[in-house]
């Protein structure tokens, strides 16, 4: 191990894809499960064997240059232990040191998206890239605050930075945006990109339930966290909007979180939902990009609009200069869905 190995990330004939995984929660575990269970299929797609050479959670790391055993890692987490406590491979070692020093090809960031503290995750991504490793992030916070800086770092260090799971999880929202921007100009975007709030709003409209009751229901079904602030205050939606805006180019290029005007749905009166319904409308938490800037706000849409998606679904409408509107609908979250996006990013990096 050592810095000298870092440059090997650029080597085409690297014997396998050596992965450092930061964060071992819902998404991280889903990824480990997938890499393990679908080993052979993935090896064909990647053109090389994928190995987890390091896995870090908030308390420690497990390290094994030859590859960590996924069942052992999952078992430790099932027992509420840190991967750093696994005998033989576990170490109480700082994540940043692992990022910089481990001989690996790519660092995958799945730690929590904390807008108030983007730094450790941002440092991990910048550190990985300056050490010559590719970076994949499903953590939105570093991208939301410093996307131009991260993209510049990837360009300068000649590595790839992929983040397709940050918006829409497995639903390829960002890929479609880039594709559409290739042949036409995207003049505006309207998007529902947070499943939790869409679930709550749908529930309020369909069951005529007040906000608090709908939220409690979402928590019960596991659609919302016990602290749902990130979702219901529009923070998660706004972070995704920043990433989408930068990726699509055009009006939103170079923007960061502070450029978004954010209003969530916390305490939305049921009366507003009823009034909207009387006029043939529903209220959705819409993220939009237009000449008026970047906006997140509860907004009325027509009942028969393609954006009127049920439950925890996501939907994004791109307005094109020549080609009119294009709408993509799909699930926007879930461990396996997000892990799928990571696998997609790994394959794309390998073939770039």
């Amino acid at each position, binding site marked *: 191990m050592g810095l000298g190995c870092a440059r090997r990330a650029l080597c085409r004939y690297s014997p396998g894809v050596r992965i450092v995984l930061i964060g071992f929660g819902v998404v991280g575990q889903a990824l480990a499960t997938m890499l393990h269970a679908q080993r052979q299929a993935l090896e064909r797609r990647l053109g090389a064997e994928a190995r987890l050479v390091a896995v870090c959670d908030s308390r420690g790391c497990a390290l094994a240059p030859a590859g960590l055993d996924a069942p052992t890692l999952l078992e430790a987490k099932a027992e509420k232990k840190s991967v750093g406590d696994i005998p033989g491979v576990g170490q109480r070692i700082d994540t940043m040191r692992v990022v910089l020093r481990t001989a690996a090809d790519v660092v995958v960031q799945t730690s929590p998206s904390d807008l108030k503290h983007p730094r450790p995750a941002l440092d991990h991504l*910048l550190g990985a890239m*300056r050490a010559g490793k590719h970076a994949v992030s499903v953590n939105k916070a570093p991208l939301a*605050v*410093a996307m*131009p*800086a991260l*993209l*510049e*770092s990837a360009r*300068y260090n000649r590595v790839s930075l992929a983040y397709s799971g940050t918006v829409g999880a497995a639903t390829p929202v960002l890929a479609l945006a880039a594709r559409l921007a290739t042949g036409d100009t995207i003049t505006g975007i309207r998007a529902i990109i947070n499943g939790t709030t869409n679930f709550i709003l749908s529930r309020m409209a369909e069951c005529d339930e007040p906000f608090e009751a709908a939220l409690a229901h979402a928590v019960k079904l596991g659609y919302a966290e016990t602290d749902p602030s990130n979702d219901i205050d529009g923070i998660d939606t706004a972070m995704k909007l920043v990433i989408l805006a930068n990726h699509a180019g055009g009006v939103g290029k170079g923007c960061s979180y502070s450029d978004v005007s954010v209003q969530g749905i916390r305490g939305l009166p049921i009366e507003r939902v009823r009034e909207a319904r009387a006029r043939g409308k529903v209220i959705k938490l819409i993220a939009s990009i237009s000449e008026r800037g970047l906006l997140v706000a509860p907004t009325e849409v027509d009942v028969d609009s393609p954006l009127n998606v049920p439950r925890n679904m996501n939907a994004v409408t791109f307005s094109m200069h020549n080609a009119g509107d294009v709408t993509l609908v799909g699930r926007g979250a879930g461990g396996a869905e997000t892990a799928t996006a990571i696998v997609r990013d790994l394959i794309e990096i390998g073939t770039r």
Partner: protein
Amino acid sequence: MRIVMKFGGTSVADAERIGHVAGIVRAAAGKHQVLTVVSAMDGITEQLLEVADAAASGNDLRTGELLTAIRDRHLACAYALGAHEHVRPLLEGLEAVVHGVLALEELTPRSTDAIAAFGERLSCAMLAHVLGATPMDGRQAGIVTDDHFTEADPLMDLSMFQVQEVLGPMMDKGQPVVVTGFVAANQHGVTSTLGRGGSDYTATILGSALKADEIWIYSDVDGLMTADPRVVPEARLLGALGFAEAVEMGKFGAKSMHPRALEPAAAYGVPVRMRSTFKPDHPGTLISSAPAPTATVVRAVPMLKGLAMLTVGGAAMVGRPGSASEVFASLARERINIHMICQSVSESGISLVVSQAQADRAKAALERTLRQHGLARTIDVRPGVCVVAPVGAAMKGTPGVAARIFTCIAGLGINVIAIAQGSSELSISIVVEGQSGPRAVAAIHKEFGLQGDQPQANV
């Protein structure tokens, strides 16, 4: 307002002047949010580079002499300011690095930067002490560069983000900070320096990142002039100027700003005010994206002296792709800077203007290329020429400006040797004999009424 103030080497040349600068900063801090950027004391950067060379060539006597000179000057200043506790460890650090170079007799660009950076770190420590401010080097402030030591380019998006993150909250709280100009670090934290544009560049990077209302660049002159007052006594101060015009003037004279340093300010639309430490209340010259329109088409007539013109001639060059690139490549290999290029459509010759001091080397380099590639038959050198370059944003699209310029030069019987105009159309470069330059400048200055429209400068 939020202001970034930058003080050059002459403004911090001794204890008294540092005290004076501190007074200017304090006065401004009473009214504005202020961030201060400082250069090394006058002449120190040159001495540091000399000490680096002396150490690299194993000349221990000269190394010792220079280190002593640097130490004595800073300690004298630091004692006068009560800042010796902050300065002494820096001097020890400098000596350690220099002795490392001396021991190895090897100087890498990386160690050159490590040594050169001490100039700003020392002046920064002293000014910060007087102000009760936090001293920071460019790395701590968040400026990240590539690995081209001695001439590093910032990774601009990353630097912008980090500067906002580090200095933004400090400025919001009104916390006084002094940042070293010129000094930065690569992404691994190794000290680098910005090279051309130096401390001014630091100031415009910081000002752009912090969305400052203005960037104030202090020196010992009032601002930019319509012409060199030693050449044209009626020359006046320019009250306002566009970024594009300021960039055109950037090559002429040490008192203007390097175009590279103007780049971030122009890109982010932060106005730059050039002003004098000796007249802190004088508004100076304001460089901005949209200066108020003026009556004069030509705004200034700068001149560059001490040049030579090389003409590479020969029919072999006609219609032969790549011949120009051979000429430029051979000069680039010798690190010769080309000030101006002319080629006619007939392609039978290329004329290049280089500095007089590099003319012989340029000729030798071109002769080697000529022999190798059989490109040209002749290489003429015309020494002792100068370039006169009237500048003005309104020159673009105003018909007859060139005719007026040439008529007034011709009226004095001055021979025009060559002409070049870039596609920006903001200026025309005219090559004339060295001794005719001042007369040409004065004549154009008068022709376009430059002595009349601006407020009187008190030079």
